[in-house]
């Protein structure tokens, strides 16, 4: 309290300081004696402005979050790639037996994937699939392999790396037999790009 009084007295006595800080008489009095506002309604106005500013910031945040969430399209490529792999799997092997047109009596045949009822026509560049069939004795060298769709997608896809802008893919493998009872492992990779519609 004592220091406060001393400060006030010094401030009033120091004419130079007072004249420098204030130009009018009214201002001098206000500034020298009451540095904090006495006027309650003024303070309330400042508070209401402060409240409005907070309101605008909060509303801006909510609007931003809603725009980010609903502005982005639903990414269904993962499901689509899985469906593509399932569809090809049904075509390659059904009921645990490999399609006779692909492998029969341990020998590869002539098989076209057009028989699998796949039609990529309006967006042929957006799909890719690879079917690799391995004999159970040799899992390093494939016995039969075929690719379809946009072959460039295989290079830009990586199983371990997920990025929205990269194509999304699914790989599934399962066990199957041919008509002679030979055992095989079938690996199917399906990749979907469609970044414009999903990212």
């Amino acid at each position, binding site marked *: 309290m004592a220091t406060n009084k001393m400060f006030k007295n010094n401030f009033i006595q120091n004419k130079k300081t007072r004249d420098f800080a204030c130009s009018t008489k009214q201002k001098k009095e206000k500034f020298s004696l009451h540095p904090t506002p006495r006027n309650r*309604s003024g303070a*309330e106005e400042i508070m*209401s402005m402060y409240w409005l500013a907070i*309101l605008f910031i909060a*509303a801006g945040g*909510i*609007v931003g979050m*809603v*725009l980010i969430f*609903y502005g982005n*399209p*639903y990414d*269904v490529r993962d*499901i*689509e790639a899985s*469906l*593509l792999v*399932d*569809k090809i799997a049904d075509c390659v092997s059904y009921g645990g037996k490999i399609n006779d047109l692909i492998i029969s009596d341990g020998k590869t045949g002539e098989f076209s994937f057009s028989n699998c*009822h*796949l*039609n*990529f*026509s*309006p*967006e042929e560049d*957006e*799909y890719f699939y690879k079917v690799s069939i391995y004999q159970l004795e040799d899992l390093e060298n494939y016995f039969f392999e075929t690719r379809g769709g946009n072959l460039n997608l295989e290079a830009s896809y990586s199983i371990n790396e997920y990025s929205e802008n990269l194509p999304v893919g699914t790989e599934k493998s399962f066990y199957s037999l041919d008509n002679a009872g030979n055992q095989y492992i079938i690996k199917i990779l399906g990749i979907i790009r469609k970044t414009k*519609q999903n990212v």
Partner: protein
Amino acid sequence: MRWIIKNKKAHVQLLSAFPKNRKGAELLQKYVIFIVLNLIFMSVLLFFISSKINGVSVLEESYSKNIALLIDASTPIMEMKLNMGDAFDLVEKNKISRDEIVKIENNSVIVKLSATSGYTYNFFNDVDVTAYADIYPSKNYLIKINGYK
């Protein structure tokens, strides 16, 4: 009114009912304006959020992708019923026929919920599909897989 002016007691009572304190009245007015502005602000915000959530573009996209994925997962002679209640409500507002909501052409599903918009998503299953709205009170859409092309 005349009775009030003539009757002194009633006149005094009427005057005392209103605040004499001008400052208080001003303060009250300020608070009322502030609360009203806040309510307007909040209602605009809620309207914006609800319009985004139930917006035409969001529904079109979700229905289009849903139907395309259903077709991809299907096999011939399947019949699927998809509840499209939200779409029917929107279409009634936008004055579009129920049968025009979903169109399937060249392996593409086109969903249209207003005259100016529309969303297309492609499917890879090479099947012959027909889609049509169920009979009136029902809010389902029927998707029929007729066979392979």
